[in-house]
């Protein structure tokens, strides 16, 4: 069945289809639609909804639910996401799966609610204390919002690691026609590492203070190596013969898809790489480039956060350009003019 849904609503339906059975959250714009969805419809779909007293609480509650075998979810934005870093760091350290949606706000501190992608560094470089990474998936359409929760839960349970899904408020609030996936119920007994009470005589422990006894170092290294080898995901548009390749995600990717069409119609060889995993960074996408000379990273933050990754992972062998601003998304015409300038 198709419905006209905004990104947040699509994400909520996508989470239902992924088997979510526990939601704890605290309202914050521009993510609140998801909170309201589960507050309103949680009972109907058998999802336990808890209004947590803070984002700190919400994130720790989903840790508890996940330890019990749930597909647990919390959704937040901006400063709320910062408050969750404690629990995310704990879950990464203790091998507890979870999915967190961060609908990005503009700027630092309180910031504001327009479109922005300023949380790129925080999400992809850890964000909390210590030696860890969360897997980060970026959505660029309501369809992505519908489909990514299932991918997110599967990855989080496979690697026993937190997964963050992210997009900006343009994707969150743009309504699109999208195929609604059917509700699937999660079996909370399916995972062998779920704590159920010591029935076997050998207790299960969720902890990381004794990690040196358990080859923790090697285990962690292996986990992240496997993630980086196996889980790079991206979409590509006309990259094979492209001389100028754009890199963009979320709303910027949507603009760039149009740019590729317009430029190609004019005979300009332009391509586009849309990272779906922001961590692990999809460096494999760049290995297929045959004719590329220039890379343009389009992103909504002033520090050119993603461009640094692009330059690093492509070993600085191209000419790099940025179209970046805190929250002003370029139009197709702006980008076409930019192409003319750098050709």
């Amino acid at each position, binding site marked *: 069945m198709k419905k006209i849904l905004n990104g947040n609503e699509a994400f909520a339906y996508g989470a239902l289809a992924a088997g979510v*059975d*526990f939601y*704890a959250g605290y309202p914050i714009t521009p993510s609140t639609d998801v909170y309201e969805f589960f507050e309103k419809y949680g009972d109907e779909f058998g999802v*336990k909804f*808890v209004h*947590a*007293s*803070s984002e*700190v*609480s919400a994130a*720790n*509650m*989903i*840790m*508890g*639910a*996940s*330890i*019990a*075998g*749930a597909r*647990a979810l919390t959704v937040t934005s901006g400063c709320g996401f910062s408050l969750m870093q*404690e*629990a995310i760091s*704990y879950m990464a350290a*203790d091998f507890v799966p979870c999915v967190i949606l961060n609908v990005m706000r503009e700027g630092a501190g309180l910031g504001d609610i327009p479109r922005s992608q300023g949380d790129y560094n925080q999400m992809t470089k850890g964000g909390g204390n210590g030696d860890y990474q969360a897997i980060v998936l970026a959505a660029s359409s309501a369809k992505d919002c519908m489909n990514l929760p299932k991918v997110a839960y599967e990855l989080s349970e496979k690697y026993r690691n937190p997964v963050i899904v992210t997009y900006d408020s343009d994707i969150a609030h743009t309504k699109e026609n999208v195929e609604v996936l059917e509700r699937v119920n999660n079996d*909370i007994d399916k995972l062998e590492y779920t*704590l*159920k*009470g*010591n*029935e076997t*005589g*050998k*207790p*299960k*422990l*969720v*902890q*990381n*203070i004794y990690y040196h006894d358990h080859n923790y170092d090697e285990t962690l290294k292996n986990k992240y190596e496997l993630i980086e080898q196996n889980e790079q995901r991206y979409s590509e548009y006309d990259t094979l013969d492209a001389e100028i390749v754009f890199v963009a995600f979320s709303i910027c990717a949507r603009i760039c898809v149009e740019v590729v069409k317009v430029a190609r119609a004019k005979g300009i060889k332009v391509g586009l790489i849309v990272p779906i995993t922001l961590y692990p960074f999809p460096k494999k996408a760049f290995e297929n480039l045959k004719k590329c000379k220039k890379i343009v990273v389009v992103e909504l933050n002033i520090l050119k956060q993603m461009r640094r990754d692009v330059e690093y992972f492509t070993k600085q062998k191209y000419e790099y350009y940025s179209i970046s601003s805190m929250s002003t998304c370029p139009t197709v015409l702006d980008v076409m003019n930019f192409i003319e300038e750098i050709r």
Partner: protein
Amino acid sequence: MYDLLCAGCGHRTAMMLLDDIIREKNLKEKVILALDVACCSLLIDYVDYDSIMCAHGRVLDVTKGYKEMRRENVVISYMGDGAAYSIGIEEMVHAARRNDDVFAIVINNGLYSMTGGQVAPTYVDVAYSGRENGINSSADDYYKEKGFKIEDIIGKFSIKYLARAALTDKENIDIAKKYISTALNKYVNVGGFNLVELLSPCPTNYKMTPKDTVNMINDKLSKVYQIGEFING
């Protein structure tokens, strides 16, 4: 296994009491032990329950998430007074406000013991005046004398059980066992929020002998932090 806890530590007594009660009630296979950090977390080596080491002050959040998904399990929310009444006071107040299904044990010694005995909000000057650096400079004079008491904070809430005992001599430990047992019965049979606070000796950080510590708690501290059942609904 070598002993991780100090001589005269109240955690040992508390955990032995809990373990006794759990075994008497034949609940061992249902128990999930949710521990706070620092000295509390050492107990993970003393018992063979499925256990979770939570972030500091977040035991009641983790408990809430777990219990919502597995209502048949018995979650012991075990924490110190720093976790319960300082960094985790928000979690405490809202768990009590929601009357969450909670069986909480709070070990109150007025100090941050693992980090060397810095004073917690529960510290009162009169009780530990023999200690070298025991001055609760951050508290209002009222609390230095009267104490920061959980019954003053959540005592009017619609919760099931709230009591305080002391882990000192046989008489007091028997009372503690009775309170813990009552709280656990209510938790299993009725649900709702049940909390037992245990005044607990920390001779290492009081810089007293275990015997003097016990006497101090009996003679002075339990006059400030009264022993008894405050809510038994």
